[in-house]
């Protein structure tokens, strides 16, 4: 992000007004940088035009890795590396491998997906978030509009659009 970027912030009290406002603001040609909410608002990603998250695909791929790893490990250990007859069964009998395979599939799918989520959303203990308005983790929805991305439009025009679409406050914010 550039220094001295200026943002126009629309503060919304209600999720339904917000959802409608996002549509109106986008229809009027203003590009929304991001919307910050204290809780997940259903349908917000759709009106903002975000593509569906591909995290389920990541989970699936990591799950397959887990399955493969678990089966390879068990067959290698029980069938190739050190054969032992246990309870008169085959060296390697598939049904007894199912529980460990299942657990490792779940473990890798969960950890892999969460890891991708952390990286893609830049979540880490030393991350310093850019807070537009501290109330965005309490009770307000903050719509941030980057004026650099909207240079074609006048700031007062953007403010007007925000007010008419239902924002309870319109503020400006710059980061050093």
């Amino acid at each position: 992000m550039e220094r001295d970027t200026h943002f126009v912030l629309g503060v919304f009290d209600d999720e339904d007004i917000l959802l409608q406002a996002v549509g109106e603001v986008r229809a009027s040609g203003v590009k929304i940088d991001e919307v910050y909410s204290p809780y997940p608002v259903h349908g917000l990603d759709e009106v903002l035009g975000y593509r569906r998250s591909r995290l389920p695909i990541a989970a699936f791929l990591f799950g397959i890795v887990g399955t493969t790893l678990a089966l390879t490990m068990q067959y290698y250990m029980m069938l190739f590396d050190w054969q032992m007859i246990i309870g008169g069964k085959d060296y390697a009998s598939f049904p007894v491998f199912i529980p460990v395979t299942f657990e490792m599939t779940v473990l890798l799918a969960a950890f892999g997906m969460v890891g991708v989520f952390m990286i893609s959303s830049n979540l880490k203990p030393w991350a310093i978030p850019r807070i537009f308005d501290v109330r965005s983790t309490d009770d307000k929805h903050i719509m941030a509009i980057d004026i650099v991305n909207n240079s074609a439009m006048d700031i007062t025009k953007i403010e007007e659009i925000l007010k008419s679409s239902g924002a309870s406050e319109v503020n400006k914010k710059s980061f050093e």
Partner: protein
Amino acid sequence: MQVTSSVRDPLVTGGKTYHDVTQDVCRQVEGRPSLGWFLAFLTAAGVLALGSIALVVTLWEGIGMWGLNKTVGWAWDITNFVWWVGIGHAGTLISAVLLLFRQKWRTSINRAAEAMTIFAVICAAMFPVIHMGRPWLGAYWALPLPNTFGSLWVNFNSPLLWDVFAISTYFAVSLVFWYIGLIPDFATIRDRATGLRKTIYGALSFGWDGAARTWMRYESVSLILAGLATPLVLSVHTIVSFDFATSVIPGWHTTIFPPYFVAGAIFSGFAMVLTLMIVTRKVFKLEDYITISHIELMNIVIIVTGSIVGVAYITEFFIAWYSGVEPEFYAFYNRATGPYFWAYWTMMTCNVISPQLFWIKKIRTSIAATFALSIVVNIGMWFERFVIIVTSLHRDYLPSSWAMFYPTWVDVGVYLFTFGLFFTLFLLFAKFFPVINMAEVKAVLKSSSEKVSK
């Protein structure tokens, strides 16, 4: 836009606004702990300290200090293990299964229930670890690590090894699921705080900013984790039941065990959630979030699972007779009429009869009755495991080797240790972490409260 239902009761009472939710939940994180909290914490820590004497004795002298003998080689250790793991299941059921079923009432109880899961699993895992005698070598016995014995690997045919994988996966996935939910709430605390607290909660919140894109991914992650945790939680107690069911001991070798154990786990877990929640809501003044209707719904789960458990008891008894296998029938006959008859009838009374009282609306909406019955259920479920384990072993095929099991003070002490550990951890959680998932409660507030929309 607003649709207010005239049929459903609000999930959160008292006409709370979004800001009220933040205030009510952050209050005890930010304020000084109350005298009651200090007293409870000192008691829990005292029990922990006392119990740790027994733990040290076990580790120093070996498990010969327990009351086990040649005939009864498994007793309190595995009873306590299964009991604690079972308790943990309710947390995952609330956070994962109820999420998949879109039961929105879970939002105000899932955080504390999941914390309970994690602490209960820690207590449970302690027993298999210490029963190895020399736990510092245990990694070689429990995990497939390369070693200088061959390499002679761990036995993948053994349900005890499956347990290692199941319990550790369950613990790890529950912890991650719980922590992901905590991140937005830590951010809320961070944004209200100053100084050192801001730094600590800032690090805990992982730089969360509440962007719509992150929320979208968060929702996706929650849903997938719930989808993974649901079969996981069923697999965990299934595999725990395999520890018994795959052996050829009369009374253990039954195919009914997996569903029966899972139902029993949920049954006892909900009882423990109720015990904890009834105290927590009172102490932290959260009656508007954990309402009577929450308690009633949890009691309904207890009726359902308790009835499944009751049917399972009767079924296994019937099948033991109907199978015509004499040792099998004797194992059950001995449970009900032998020297441990009192344990059997305690179990039957607490688990089969007492939950049926919840059919009466007055009882299932009464806090005092629910609290009392939740403790009764937990006592009953401890006895269930004791009955299954000890009474099946103490009279085996050779009457000359029949024996009784008597716990020593070390057995009692180690069990006390886990209680101390559980309540110490839970009290620390209740003080320093938001006990209610603020973000998720805010998300369901609108469908439940008219004041917000005005």
